[in-house]
């Protein structure tokens, strides 16, 4: 081989320089510096920000490209182009870089483009956010879910109290009854996150949790009563005896997902759901004394796990439940061979959507509030009040005012309708009486081809960005803010689903659930941030590792060994310091009740 020495040398040097410079730059600046925001701060600060004007104007055309003559309206915001970087701790597979209809409308109205990055894999953002804190490099806006505490402890999040007060009339209006609930903690009453992962004043019209049974099973067995785990077991048993195979594959009576954190959704959370306790993450909180303890200590739950163990030993629970990975789990559901699930619709939604796309509507699932025995009531639908994961602005954001104005615009009626309904004339129309209607073809695409629908329209992709009203709330035009209202929910049901509901004399699955449960005073504890310093996190991680390891053992134990294995599990938790952790958590819960309600808790 002949080498031209100088040429080789220069190529080598050049490539090494490229290598070096590639990493030297660090982050290539979050591009927010490219567009200089033209002083919107000075004039707006004086205004007492009344949210009066902009309501009911849904015509999507607020193109006020800085008309200088219009100086009277000082709340008008700057719409010069600006880009914000964003990280979302949930996966968002349909994100289309704002090239969807809703995204384009948002950019047209606010001038903002979002350079978004979302968590991959199982979601949650844990690793990514830890690394952000360690490297001190943040996106401008972040939806951090359960990891807000890490960012706050690292001093990365700015206090939004004043910004909301000055620039965010719409957010203030939405959150007016829940201002206390936005505060971070009793000791640090700053607002670090605006709750966005749920609807304010939400009234759920449908239930999407509980225990699931395939519609074909219900139909064939003549819509049997499914209230207790025994009923549930009988139904699965009877059907699988009649149909041992589905499309040539063996029928799977019951399937759980033991992969990673989804273990909570399908294996351990149902233990308290089926025994009448509300969802407080890994804890059970005594509603009188506010004593918190890992929910596995409840004696009722031992009986639930005993039932799961029984299902396994009967051969009804799929043997691969704790071995398979999430994708294998989803693939099994998408094959239509799984009769029963114990999960939440969002957990297996993608698999169910592909069943719908394949036209296998009878293999989709109905929801039942199954409990261990008649003495319990399913408390899943207990409202935690306004307490959701929220959106935050970091110290890396060069123009927090524009950022909060952007979030505020999304929280305006115009923004909310755009987010939920789409663009007028495309995804919905107004009928003669001014009522928003979704055309049939649009609804069809939404239900049966949801992935492509959200990719092209952007509907639902921006809900985590700003606070919004929940289902059942009407705007000033008398329309619902969201598209989830009874008529629309029923219109979204497939024929098979409608048939099954008719078999139970119900119009929605929620009709099967108990009604009028009291609101929890301590909110949603999974959203309560715990100190990242000290022992708590270590003990918690250890107990979680024990639960991950021991619960499968409990479920897969031989019937006669069950008690022994379960007692070992509890002993392991004790040894890891679960009791002590419970005490620390109790103190946090009590502080929270004080903060939220103003009550004096001992």
């Amino acid at each position, binding site marked *: 081989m002949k080498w031209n020495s100088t040429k080789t*040398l220069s190529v*080598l*040097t050049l490539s*090494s*320089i490229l*290598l*070096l410079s590639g*990493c030297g730059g660090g982050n290539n600046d979050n591009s927010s510096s490219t567009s200089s925001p033209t002083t919107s701060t000075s004039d707006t600060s004086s205004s007492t920000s009344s949210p009066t004007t902009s309501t009911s104007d849904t015509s999507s055309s607020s193109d006020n490209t800085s008309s200088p003559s219009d100086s009277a309206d000082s709340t008008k915001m700057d719409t010069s182009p600006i880009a914000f970087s964003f990280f979302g701790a949930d996966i968002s597979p349909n994100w289309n870089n704002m090239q969807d209809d809703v995204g384009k409308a948002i950019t047209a109205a606010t001038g903002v483009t979002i350079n978004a990055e979302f968590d991959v894999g199982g979601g949650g953002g*844990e*690793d990514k956010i*830890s*690394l952000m*804190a*360690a490297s*001190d490099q943040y996106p401008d806006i972040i939806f951090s879910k359960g990891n807000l505490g*890490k960012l706050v*402890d*690292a*001093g*990365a999040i700015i206090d939004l109290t004043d910004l909301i007060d000055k620039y965010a009339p719409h957010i203030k209006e939405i959150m007016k009854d829940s201002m206390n609930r936005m505060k971070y903690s009793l000791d640090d009453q700053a607002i670090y996150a605006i709750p966005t992962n749920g609807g304010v004043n939400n009234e759920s019209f449908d239930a999407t949790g509980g225990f699931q049974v395939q519609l074909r099973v219900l139909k064939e067995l003549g819509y049997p009563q499914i209230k207790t785990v025994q009923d549930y077991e009988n139904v699965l048993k009877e059907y699988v005896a009649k149909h041992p195979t589905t499309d040539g594959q*063996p029928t799977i009576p019951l399937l759980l997902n*033991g*992969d990673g954190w989804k*273990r909570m959704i399908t294996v351990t959370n149902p233990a308290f759901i089926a025994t009448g306790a509300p969802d407080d993450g890994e804890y059970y909180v005594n509603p009188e004394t506010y004593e918190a303890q890992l929910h596995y200590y409840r004696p009722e739950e031992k009986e639930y796990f005993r039932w799961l163990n029984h299902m396994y030993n009967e051969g009804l629970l799929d*043997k*691969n439940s*704790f*071995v*398979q*990975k999430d*994708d*294998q789990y989803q693939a099994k559901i998408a094959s239509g061979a799984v009769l029963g699930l114990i999960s939440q619709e969002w957990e297996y939604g993608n698999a169910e959507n592909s069943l719908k796309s394949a036209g296998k509507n009878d293999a989709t699932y109905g929801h039942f509030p199954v409990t261990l025995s008649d003495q319990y009531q399913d408390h899943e639908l207990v409202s935690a009040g306004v307490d959701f994961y929220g959106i935050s602005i970091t110290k890396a954001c060069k123009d927090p005012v524009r950022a909060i104005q952007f979030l505020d615009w999304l929280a305006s009626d115009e923004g909310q309708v755009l987010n939920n309904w789409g663009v007028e004339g495309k995804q919905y129309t107004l009928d003669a009486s001014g009522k928003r209607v979704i055309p049939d073809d649009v609804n069809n695409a939404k239900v049966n081809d949801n992935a492509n629908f959200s990719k092209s329209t952007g509907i639902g992709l921006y809900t985590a960005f700003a606070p919004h009203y929940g289902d059942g709330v009407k705007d000033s035009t008398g329309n619902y803010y969201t598209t989830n209202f009874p008529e629309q929910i029923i219109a979204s049901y497939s024929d098979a689903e409608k048939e099954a509901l008719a078999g139970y004399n119900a119009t929605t699955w929620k009709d099967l659930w108990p009604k009028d449960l009291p609101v929890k005073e301590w909110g949603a504890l999974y959203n309560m941030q715990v100190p*990242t*310093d000290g022992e708590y*996190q*270590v003990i*918690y*991680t*250890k107990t979680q*590792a024990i639960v*991950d*390891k021991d*619960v*499968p*053992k409990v479920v*897969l134990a031989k019937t006669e060994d069950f008690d022994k294995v379960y007692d070992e599990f509890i002993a392991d938790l004790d040894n890891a310091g679960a009791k002590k952790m419970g005490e620390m958590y109790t103190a946090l819960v009590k502080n929270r009740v004080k903060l939220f309600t103003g009550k004096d808790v001992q």
Partner: protein
Amino acid sequence: MKTLPSAGTTQNVDVPGLKKKQRFWAGIVREKYLLLMSIPFVLWLFVFNYLPIWGWTMAFQNYKPAKSFSEQKWVGFDQFKTLFHDHDFYLVLRNTLAMSVLGLIAGFTIPILFAILLNEVKSMPFKRVAQTITYLPHFVSWVVVAGIVTSMLSLDGVVNNLLIWLHIIHEPIQFMAKEHWFWGIVTGSDIWKETGWNAIIFLSAITGIDKELYEAAKVDGAGRFRQMWNITLPGIRSTIMVLFILSVGHLLNNGYEKQLLLGNSLVVDYSQVLDLYALNYGIKIAHFSYGTAISMFNSVVSILLLFTANGFFKKFAKESIM
């Protein structure tokens, strides 16, 4: 630098009178282009391999993000104390070492055996095809390999079907749920994935052996196996030694992808390795100092192992990489 040698006469001869220092500078000038060429790589090495060592200071602090270096609280060896008092740490250390040693043994013997056997094959086309087929899995990501392994070993997978068909077992075995088999499964899938690739270097070492040696051996009446034992193996001995010593240094840094992807909650006592431990108890819960302490322990032990292995071979096999 005043005695700049203009011609190549003086410096090639080792003149005893010339002072050491002068010879040094002369050497630099003589090899100036070579040295210039190496500068970018030295820089590269420095930036990526030496600058990060500064971060080890975190292991002796109670590190808090967003505080400057001078504001951090120094805690001495507290992080290490916690580490060495943690029962789980010894568990993951055991798993890491066990899987690494198994991988090391299998990762050497089998590729060497394979390379020698392949070398004996006379049919060129077959040899080429066999080589290509065996090294292709190296390019398959662990994610895919893990998927293949899991489904092959599942209850209704190929392996169970085969064993039942052969009447070796009556009930399907859930391989992935047996904690004692996990190390074996990891090592086995590693062999499947890397044997062909690792054999390449040995094959090329074998081609370097003088053909006359084989002919001479034949004349002396050595059979095939004699030739393998007395010529091929000694011929690639130095390659084997160097690679072995280097791998010993990587014993603790065996990666975690295999364990993460093949493991599940049932086998976690045997699948958790040091890197995953550092991830769960260091980075994930923002205890950065603790994570640093783990990785520092990792590095120090790796260096010790490397020197031990090197010293050992230096003494007994007269081979050394340093």
